[in-house]
């Protein structure tokens, strides 16, 4: 047991050392959060602003099928993004982590290089790839179309002609949920790769050999040994992709066009154009609660 004066000194030192971050979190995180929480129970003033009348009106409005649909779509898009990131990111991380050590850092660096460019610009670049006159559709209506037309003339397959006709019109890529998912996957892929890479790199490969020695074929040793042992990386990566995807605003705004919006855009428009602070706050809080609960459940399921 420490003596009284010493433990007090210890406590004082602790308080002094923690005070900057405590101050920061209180002023810039906790206080605004409380404010937002309070506002969510207020009412919109006639000319914007908040009238401090306690009401559940904003939360009731959220239960409107329009917003629930957007919210459900947001969750679906975020889930799809997470799954696709995992399907692309895990094999990539596995490949990187199993290269000779001197190559690994180079590969990690290469993974990061595109992200030295501003996020907005990179997302905007997808616009030029996906839109009707974009890169993909230029190829689609250009060379692909011509090859198919020629092939349809030369070969007597009925389907080929119909397929060639279909390539006259550009593909509807821009302004779809698919475009948003492409943008989100592109944006958050490194957040999936890096935690997976870290846990795969730490994996003791003699355990994989032990699995194969005990008659587990490649798939079985992957599912029974490699996946469970790298689960912490998979969980961390999924959370790191899912959370920002759920709250995404820039990507759906740029790539979703007018047709496809996510909950982040709803919050934005409530604060910036509709000037309905209580409703924007309420939606923010619902979103935060869902993120928190979802993350907790996910982490718990990842543990044994």
């Amino acid at each position, binding site marked *: 047991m420490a003596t009284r004066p010493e433990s007090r000194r210890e406590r004082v030192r602790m308080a002094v050392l923690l005070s900057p971050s405590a101050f920061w979190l209180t002023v810039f995180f906790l206080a605004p959060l409380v404010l937002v929480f309070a506002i969510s129970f207020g009412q919109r003033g006639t000319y914007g602003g908040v009238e401090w009348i306690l009401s559940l009106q904003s939360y009731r409005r959220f239960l409107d099928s329009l917003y629930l649909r957007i919210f459900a779509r947001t969750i679906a898009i975020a889930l799809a993004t997470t799954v696709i990131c995992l399907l692309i990111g895990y094999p990539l991380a596995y490949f990187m982590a199993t290269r000779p050590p001197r190559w690994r850092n180079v590969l990690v660096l290469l993974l990061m290089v595109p992200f030295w460019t501003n996020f907005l610009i990179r997302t905007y670049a997808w616009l030029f790839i996906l839109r009707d006159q974009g890169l993909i559709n230029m190829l689609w209506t250009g060379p692909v179309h011509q090859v198919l037309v020629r092939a349809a003339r030369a070969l007597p397959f009925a389907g080929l002609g119909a397929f060639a006709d279909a390539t006259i019109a550009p593909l509807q890529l821009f302004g779809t949920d698919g475009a948003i998912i492409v943008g989100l996957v592109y944006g958050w892929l490194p957040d999936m790769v890096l935690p997976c890479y870290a846990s795969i790199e730490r994996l003791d490969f003699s*355990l994989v050999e*032990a699995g*194969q*020695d*005990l008659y587990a*074929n490649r798939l079985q040793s992957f599912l029974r040994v490699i996946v469970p042992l790298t689960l912490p990386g998979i969980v961390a990566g999924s959370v790191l992709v899912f959370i920002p995807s759920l709250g995404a605003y820039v990507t759906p705004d740029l790539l979703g066009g007018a047709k496809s919006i996510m909950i982040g855009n709803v919050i934005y428009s409530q604060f910036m154009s509709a000037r309905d602070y209580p409703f924007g706050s309420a939606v923010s809080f619902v979103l935060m609660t869902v993120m928190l609960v979802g993350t907790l459940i996910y982490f718990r399921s990842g543990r*044994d």
Partner: protein
Amino acid sequence: MTKTAVQLRGVSKHFGSVTAVKDVSLTIRDGEFFSLLGPSGCGKTTTLRLIAGFELPDKGEVFIGDELQGEKPPYKRPVNTVFQNYALFPHMRVGENVAFGLQMRNVPKDETRRRVSEALEMVQLPGMESRKPDQLSGGQQQRVALARALVNEPKVLLLDEPLGALDMKLRKAMQLELKNLQERVGITFIYVTHDQEEALTMSDRIAVMKGGRIHQVDEPQRVYERPMNRFVADFIGDTNFLVGVVKAAGRGTATVTVDGELTLRLPVERIPGPSEEVTIAIRPEKISLHGEPPQGPGVPGIVEEVIYVGTETHYIVRVTQKTTMFIREQNVNPHTDVTFPQGTRVHLGWQPEAARVLTGKE
């Protein structure tokens, strides 16, 4: 006729520019406790991994039983491995670890449960199924690794320095236990170790390896008593080496001069050529000290150092200007005085067969 458990025919394996295993041929008999012994980097672990299928040979063939393994992956080979660091699955309980191999081969649940508990009993860890590997001591983990391999009833069990991580006392106990276990289950054990004493204690036969090649395959006693070359003699136990030149040779004996000072007549297995350089190897415990020239072979010398170590007294005796010899005398009599103190003139004697004449460079 005894059956063959494992056979290697002219097997070589390279890693980049390094040759790990060079033209190794070996026949391991059914039910044998066979050790691969050698210093680190000698290719013993690679040889084991070639049998397990973790590596594929660049040249040569590996047979298990009568079956050519070719490029078969590890999970299709009828062998199991006990890994150096045990490689127990940390995310599974002991029972799940041991059951793993049976599950992969779709053994029915009831049978799996029964065999797992039998295997744990066999390694003296009954009822430990629900523990996690990190709750076990090193020795217990070792036993689980053994149970996990043996439960599959493999044709051959491969062990890669399995006792390396244990402390001395536990190691000795496990050596005996492993040997007993092997005799009980009758499975062929191929055991990789760098510890010569371990190999001598447990093995039916030992292959001594260095630089990717096998230098000698023999029973422990023959490896120790009749080493084929200087490396084997040096690696296993202590040996005095006298480098000499052949003066005359014929009819199973050779006359050898050491440092131009000593002349010895020695029995030889292969008659060396005249003026050939040879090494005479004599084990320190096979030399006795005398005040007078003894019957049979021997050399005179002067005691340089006396070291009393309890069970034995060690002497270092100068026999030529350049060469000293190391002698171990068992302290049989309860006397306290050293019979041959420092500076005494003595005569070293040994049985004629105790001195081995080794030819060749290694």
